[in-house]
Structure formats: C-alpha cells, structure tokens
C-alpha cells in the first residue's frame, strides 16, 4: 500500500517536472523546417493538446497496457527499457559480486585486527573509495588498462549484444572496466559496514562467554561473530540499489555501456517524457520491491524480529 503511494507520488512529481520542461517535444520530433500544420498534427497524435490531467492519465495508463510509444525511439517504452535492462543488470550484479567478495573479508579482517596497520590500511582504502567519483575511476581504468597497457577494450559492450553476452570472452573483457569502476564505491561502503557491524557484535556478551568457555578464537570469530555480523551487511545490499543505479548512470556514460543509465541521459536530452517517466517509475518500483524484500529478510535472518 505504502509502496503504491510512493510510486503514485513519484509519478505525479516527475510528470509535473516534465511538464515544466521547456522545449516542445512535438517541435523536436518534427525536426527542422517543419510547417506549423505538421507540428500541430504531431501534437494531436501525441495528445499534447489535451488538458494536463488527461495527458497524465493517458501516459500512465499507456505505460501499464504497453500502448504508449516512446516519443523519439519509435517503439513502446517497455521494449526500450527491457532492451537495455540486461546490460545494466549484468553490470550491477558483477559490480556487486566483486564488491562483496573483496569488501566482506576486508571488513572482517579489519575488525578482528582493530587498530593494527591492516585495519588502518583497510579503513583508509575504504575512505578513499567513497571519496573518488566513479566516473573518474572508470576514466583512470580506461586510461591504464585500455590505453597504456592495452590489455582490455576501452569502451562499449563488445559485438554480442544480448542478455548473455558476459558468457563470451569478448563480453567478459568489455565488462571488466565498468564493473570494477562501479564496484569501487560499493566495495568501500560494504567494507565500512562489515567492519562496524563486526565490531558491534564482538562487543556482545555472548562472544565473551564463548571465549571464556574456551572456544578457539577462529571458531568464535567465524561461527559466533561473523554469522551474526553478516546479516545487516547482506540486508543492506537491498538498500544499495539506488547507489548502484546512480553509479551506473555515470559509469555507463563514461564507458559507453548500452544500459538503462545511458538511456536515461539520452532520453532526457531528447525530451522523451514517456521514456523518462517509465524509467523512473520502473526504477522506483524495483527499489521499493527490494526494500520490501529487505524488510522480510530481516525477519528471516534475525528470528527475534517478527511481523504480524
């Protein structure tokens, strides 16, 4: 219910903002040197001459039944979004996997060896990670790996455009730079989170108990502490969907990755309201669902929390 309120509010907000946007989409579509009659007919075809609430209704209902056409792409909005979706999912998932594989052990070690050189190293790296903009990381990786060392392709997604292009060597090679760049921020965030959560757990009484009864230190850390510390980190991944997408907008633009982030920038530049609204709502819906999953996961991971 709350989810629907949020999505409805968001759609109103974005629609209002789009209506305030200067530049008539009909004029842009008609191109240079179009007669006023052509512009008028396009305007009628798009329904831009109707009253504002009706336009909103047409846009929203059109989004749901798939009738609405993207203004400048000549197919339906969903077709474009789903065409671009696999690329972004691939990028996001790979970035997340890289980030988790590195950040969780790093955060764990840094908490266990608190106040040692290792800890300072990890925390400093994590602070640098959240300070460096992703598009700069991407540029630097392109420069070092693509131009100086010439080991990886600089940009694009390779020849195989399809949902499974990362299975080919070429697709995988193209994936490295954008996903590593995108993962840098996630890595830093998750390492900090793991460290904080691990330190919190290590302060608990039951850790003291376990040590007191003579459980080996390795077992205490892995079985008693780490398992409990991992829960908040994993559930937080759901909340990072927004961060991933915002990062994807920038990395995709930098590395010419044909995903939704680039689509968003393109659509805004072309004043394509339908695509912008559709993308925004789609993204918000994904984020809301992931928040819901996070809420449910809390109860699943931590049985002390119960939902009625």
């Amino acid at each position, binding site marked *: 219910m*709350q989810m629907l*309120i*949020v*999505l409805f*509010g*968001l759609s109103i*907000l*974005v629609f209002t*903002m*789009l209506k*305030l*946007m*200067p530049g008539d989409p009909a004029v842009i579509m008609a191109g240079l040197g179009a007669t006023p009659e052509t512009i008028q007919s396009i305007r009628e075809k798009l329904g831009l001459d109707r009253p504002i609430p009706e336009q909103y209704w047409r846009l929203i209902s059109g989004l749901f039944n798939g009738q609405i056409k993207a203004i400048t792409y000549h197919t339906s909005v969903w077709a474009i979004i789903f065409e671009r979706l696999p690329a972004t999912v691939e990028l996001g998932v790979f970035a997340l996997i890289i980030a988790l594989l590195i950040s969780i052990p790093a955060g764990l070690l840094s908490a266990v060896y608190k106040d040692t050189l290792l800890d300072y190293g990890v925390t400093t790296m994590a*602070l*640098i990670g*959240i*300070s*460096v*903009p992703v*598009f*700069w990381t991407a*540029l*630097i990786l*392109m*420069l070092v790996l693509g*131009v*100086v060392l010439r080991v990886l392709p600089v940009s694009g997604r390779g020849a195989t455009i399809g949902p499974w292009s990362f299975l080919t060597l070429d697709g995988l090679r193209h994936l490295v730079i954008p996903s590593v760049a995108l993962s840098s921020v996630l890595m830093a965030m998750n390492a900090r989170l793991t460290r904080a959560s691990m330190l919190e757990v290590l302060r608990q009484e039951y850790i003291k108990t376990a040590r007191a009864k003579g459980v080996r230190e390795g077992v205490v850390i892995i079985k008693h502490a780490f398992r409990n510390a991992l829960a908040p980190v994993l559930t937080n991944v759901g909340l990072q969907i*927004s*961060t991933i*997408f*915002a990062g994807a*907008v*920038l990395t995709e*633009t*930098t590395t010419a990755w044909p995903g939704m982030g680039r689509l*968003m*920038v393109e659509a*805004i*530049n072309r004043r394509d309201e339908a695509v*912008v609204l559709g993308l*925004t709502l789609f*993204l*918000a819906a994904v*984020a*809301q669902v992931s928040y819901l999953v996070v809420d449910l996961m809390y109860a699943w991971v931590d049985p002390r929390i119960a939902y009625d």
Partner: protein
Amino acid sequence: MEYLLSILLPSLGHMYRRLWTRAFCILGVVLAHGGILWLAIQKGRFALLAEKIPKRYAGGYWFSTLMLLGIFFLIWVFALVDLWRQGRRREEIRGQSYWSLVWRRFKRDPKGISGALIILFMLYLALFAPFFSRGDPIKMDLRNYLKPPSWEHPMGTDNFGRDILDRAIYGSRTALGIGAVATIINMLLGGFLGLVSGFYRGAADAIIMRFLEIINSIPFLLFAILAVSIFGSSIPILIIILGIFGLQPARIIRSEVLSVREEDYILAAKAIGAGQLRLIFRHVLPNAIASLLVTTTMSIGVNIIVIAGLSFLGLGIKPPTPDWGAMLRDAQEFFRTAWWMAIFPGIFIAVTVFGFNILGDSLRDVMDPRLK
C-alpha cells in the same frame, strides 16, 4: 610591554612570555599568510597595474585581497586575546564540559586534523585563487593546444590551451561554494521539516515523511539530472536543486525530537511553562547537534561529488566556467592522447571529498557520547 610587541607582530608577545609552542604556531600562520600576501602584491604589481588581468577578474582580485587583510586582522586580534587569556588562566581548572572534551579528543586525532587541514587548504585555494593561479583560466590560447605537463604548465594544458592547474584552482570555487551553500540549505530546510514532523506528528508528519520517501525512492543523482534538465543549469538553480533534494537532516532531527519528547525533563520544562522555541533550542537541538555536524561535513562531500557528476554529464556547470567535473568531461574526448587532462581534475575532487570524509569520520568518533 608584551601587548605592544604583539601589536607590532603577533607571536612576539608570546615569545616575550616564553610561550614558545604558541608563539611558533602563530608565527607560522602569520608567515604563511605573509606568503600569500606577497603573491598578491606580486600579482597586483605586475598584472593588475599593467592591466593584464581582465576587468571581469579585477573585482575577484580585490575581493580576495580584502579577505586576506580580514584574515590578517583576525589573527592579530586572536594573538592579543590569547595573550591576555594565557596570562589569566594559569590557576583556573581546565573546563570539563562536553565540548572541551570533544575538542581535546579532536586535537589528538590525526585523521580529523589532516581532514581539517585538507579542507582549509582547498578553502584557501578557492578564496585566493587569483593569487595562486598564474594565468587566465578562461582565455583560450591555441598555441598551447594539449601541451603535456612541463615547468611552465605543471599539469599540462587542455584542448583550448588553457593551463589545467589554473583551471583546477578556480574550479575549487564552484565545487566548495555550491557544495557548502547547498548543504546549508539542506540543513535549514531539513532541520525545519524534521522539527515540524517530530513535534506536531499527525498529518504534517505523515505528509513530510511520505514526501521524503518519494524523494528517497530514486537516486538523488537522477532527481538532480531531471531537475537540471528542466530548469536549466545556472549556479543558483544547481544550489537550489541540491539544497531541496538532499534532506537527510530531516530524519535525524525528527528521530531526535521523537526520542527527546517523551523524556521527563521535557515534561518538567513544559510544566514550568517553557515555550516551543525554548524546547527546540534548549533541549532538542543540543542533543542533535553532534549527528548534525557529522552529516553536514559528509554531505558537503556528497554534494561536491554530485556537482562533479552533473557537470561530467554536461548538465551542471557550463563551460567555459572552470569546474572539475566539466574538465573531466572535456578530458573524455582526448583521453587517448592527453592523459593529464583526465588525471589532475579528478585528483582535486578526490582529495577534497576525502578531506570532508575523514573529518566527518573523525567527528563521529570524537563526539560519540559513549566515549565519555
């Protein structure tokens, strides 16, 4: 006697009293500012009088000079006041208030100090940009097209022959200026909304919270992209957009209000007739100020990254105004040949944001009330 000496040159008075550490600290600060003043005079003599500085920068030059003189005056006053206080406070017991504890802990934290120094450095770069830069950051000079780093251009030149170092120095103005002002708006607006929704609950709370949820439902950067592409991207509009959409403080204040309002001392304050304003300023804000300070510091960093991101996408600061993000956008086109264009502006962004992040991190550590 020592006051007279201190009026002549701050730190001489401290030396007379054998307060060596303080004397050398003050002397160091005075000398550093003297160095900047020397640069300013050099600049002024050679450039301004010879009308090498275009009219549009002359105002900026005088503004920076005034700021510099103002800072000199502040140092001078501080030295005198400090001398007087050192004379009085010998036998006094050192303060034990929360803030004096925080300050003492902060002084011992290398992370916080280095963060503060980085920010101070960038701030001075921004304030005194006309003295540090050697040329015009906007005027094109195609004879210097894409020159690699050399003695003359330590960071190379860009595709219009402009010196990257000069542009990066001026770029700190847009980054820090917009970042700071937007964050202040975040604090004021967010703080106000948080107070309202925490105090009055009910409908106001519900509306504000739903609004925040809507804003948080898609990434901040997307809203900023949308808003900028609609309202254009002049600097005031950027500030307003960043100011409105980064409302994290609202949640902090609200949760603080909610946790405080059930306390007995609030009931007692109400019983003796304390008004709303008194409740807010005496009881709620002091409790929230620690977490607010941390958020402020961190969100200046976030805002700087978002501005850079917007400019990088071509939606933020428009060329030819020097800006780090916009410089990286230009670099994209030439990065196969001109690596220096891509490297240096990014270092400026990263170092500045890093400064704000370590300062925020250290503030969170030192202000943690559990460590009392």
